[in-house]
């Protein structure tokens, strides 16, 4: 994915996105990065669960909305691969391509695991 950045060369998180969040931090205010990553950690499993549930019931509308939400939230934390995958999933859901969505969902879970793994230390450090 991202070949540049000052983090590990094989990392899935775009450090520029995180830098951008840090830049919004104002003195005396709660840690912005911690809040955003915290939200990502707490909200993303719900979205993934929604996506998987929707795949089983064939509810492409719910699938589309969840993918849409995940697309933005992952982009903000620099989870570029996850965001890209979410966008693709949103598109297929809108087209009603359920088999395509099933294939993508597997990869999306992997992307999610990778992203959380890389972001978790940040959260611990902040706490």
């Amino acid at each position: 994915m991202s070949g540049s950045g000052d983090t590990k060369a094989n990392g899935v998180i775009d450090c520029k996105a995180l830098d951008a969040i840090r830049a919004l931090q104002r003195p005396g205010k709660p840690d912005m990065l911690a809040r955003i990553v915290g939200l990502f950690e707490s909200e993303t499993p719900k979205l993934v669960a929604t996506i998987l549930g929707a795949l089983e019931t064939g509810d492409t509308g719910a699938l589309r909305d969840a993918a849409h939400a995940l697309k933005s939230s992952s982009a903000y934390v620099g989870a570029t691969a996850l965001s890209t995958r979410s966008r693709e999933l949103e598109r297929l859901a809108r087209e009603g391509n359920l088999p395509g969505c099933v294939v993508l969902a597997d990869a999306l879970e992997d992307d999610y695991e990778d992203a959380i793994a890389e972001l978790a230390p940040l959260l611990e450090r902040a706490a």
Partner: protein
Amino acid sequence: MDAPEQSSSALSGRAQRTRPLVLHVDDDAASLIMAEGALEAAGFDVLQAGDGAEALECFGEHDPDLIIMDAIMPVMDGFDAIERLRTLSNGAHVPILMITGLDDLDSITRAYDVGATDFLTKPINFFVLPYRVQYMLRAKRTADELRSSQAKLDNAQRIARLGHWEWRPEGGELSWSREFGRILGLGSEEQAGHWEAFIERVEDEDREELSAVMRRAVAESRPTSLEFRLGRAGGAPRAVRLEAEPYPGEGERCTHMLGTLQDITERTDAQAQIHNLAYFDLVTGLPNRAQLHEQLRLVLKASGRTSEEFALLFLDLDHFKQVNDTLGHDAGDELLQQVADRLLSVVRESDTIARPGREMAANESEHTGETEHTVARLGGDEFVVLLGRIERAEDAARVAQRIAAAIGESYTIGETEVAVTTTIGIALHPADGEDAETLLKHADVAMYHAKERGRNGYQFYSRGIHEKALQRFSMERELREGIEAGQLRLVYQPKVRLVDGTVCGAEALVRWEHPERGEISPAEFIPLAEETGLVLQIGQWVLREACAQRQLWTEAGKTPFPIAINCSAVQFTRGDVIGDIDEAIASSGLDPRWLEVELTESLLLQDIDSGIDALQRMKRLGIQIAIDDFGTGFSSLSYLKRLPVDKLKIDRSFVTDLASDSGDAAIVSAIVTLSSNLGLTVVAEGVENDEQFEILRGYGCHEAQGYLIGRPMAVGMFESWLARQEEPRRAVP
């Protein structure tokens, strides 16, 4: 989702806030948090909502300066929310920044359609966001100022009733301000159209002038102005003033004009009202002294051109002061109003009656009638009647009589019966004065003379005129009485054939046997009868009498020949002469071919088409028609063939000197030849000697009438004459 946060300054309204308040609507918490950080750092206060419905609630409560709106959200999406916001009174102009997906072109289009101000794509660049928000707020302020100055301009224009417009003469495009539209009675939405459509709204009389003035201004590239009237559907016309000038910087060639249009109706109405106050009497609404002088000036100017007579009647009310003193001033004013009404109606009725027989010529008149008659109140109980264009003094006297009679009738003022009389002085122009002051003074003097001789009467300023008018009035009265008393009778003058001297007709002529003055000739009383309209009665009597007499002769076995009667122009213009003829024939039982009507050619030629029409209707009754006094009038031979007539009567003036005047002889000869060719019978009038008789016979003239044959004779004498004529014939076989 997070509940909307409130910052302390958000509690006050838009105008009082020191930091602009931004409402951020998004279902993504991370996005809300980051945007809040970025915006607060840049000096904004931030409110947050998680969906469209929450946003509407929050907007109603806090009235934010700007809204950032995510597109896709649960409960109510951004598009619906914007649509609803725009319908709110304070939501119409609030800037809204829509957040859409980067690749979602449909959403961008939809965002603008529902009323978003601008858009930003996801993921949001939070460094850029505050700058974008700042820019939008600045643009909003500029738009607000523009709107406010537009509103101020609209208001100023509305208060001044002045609109502005711009016009491109070449294509005719016209654009205008709201007030311009209001003045024209257009809807406020309409702001542009075509010059021609505007011109069509201008009143007919003013349109051509406006077009010409504007054409000239464009051609010469210079400013112009004009006052005119605009017609409005379903409303009174508006008076407007238009100012125009070439667009600043226009060179020699003017392609663009701008200007103003002001509604000046109230101003012109006020001016008219001021004019009314200055020139009209408040109590009666009649022209006052100033207006009378103005009218006199006009009439004097006109009569200078045409040397026509007019009369000034000066009158006041006898015993008016008593009414005022006993019943009060309100009653006095009421009386003056009623007097004014009666004066006006008398004068109105007098308009045609004063000039009988002139209606036919009226359309040829160069006068417009505007300054014909005026009734004015000079003040107190004094009135003046200006009678324009009178024929003779008696016309004025007649009006004065009518005025005296009308004013002398009783009045009801409130519950009270009131009687007043009037005394009238008459001055004639030009006999009694040639300027307004002299005429008014002399009319006033005449009124005082009248009062000396007893109130409730009239008096001419000139004694001679007064006597003459009185004489004519007594003659009129006597004639009226004479007609009723049977003092009229007919005499008959025979006509004979020139070839054999046999009787071929008789002309019935009217005589008035006055009990004291003896027989009065028609030349004396017919002009008076025509003026007074009595000629209508006389004409009917003559017709009935002549028809009845002819029928008696027929029944007595007398030789059948037509009996001719004369018809006056007045009978044509004011009477129903055809109806009268029809009735006389019917009541007598006469075969209509034995009735002949003589008409002068001048009567027919006044209006040739209606003349022909009348003749044709007469012919349909089966009677004979003769042209009387032929040769004395216009004598248009070309008309002869168009007129359905049977006979021509050559005027006596050509016959008198027939033997000595070769010119007359030539005329008579020509008339006879031509008429014979047209199939007309020719009658020579005034044949007094054998020489004339022989010459006429030589020309081939058909009939003769004159003292040589027989004078006009009463019935008995005529019958004896007839008997003598027929004797030899009876002896022959």
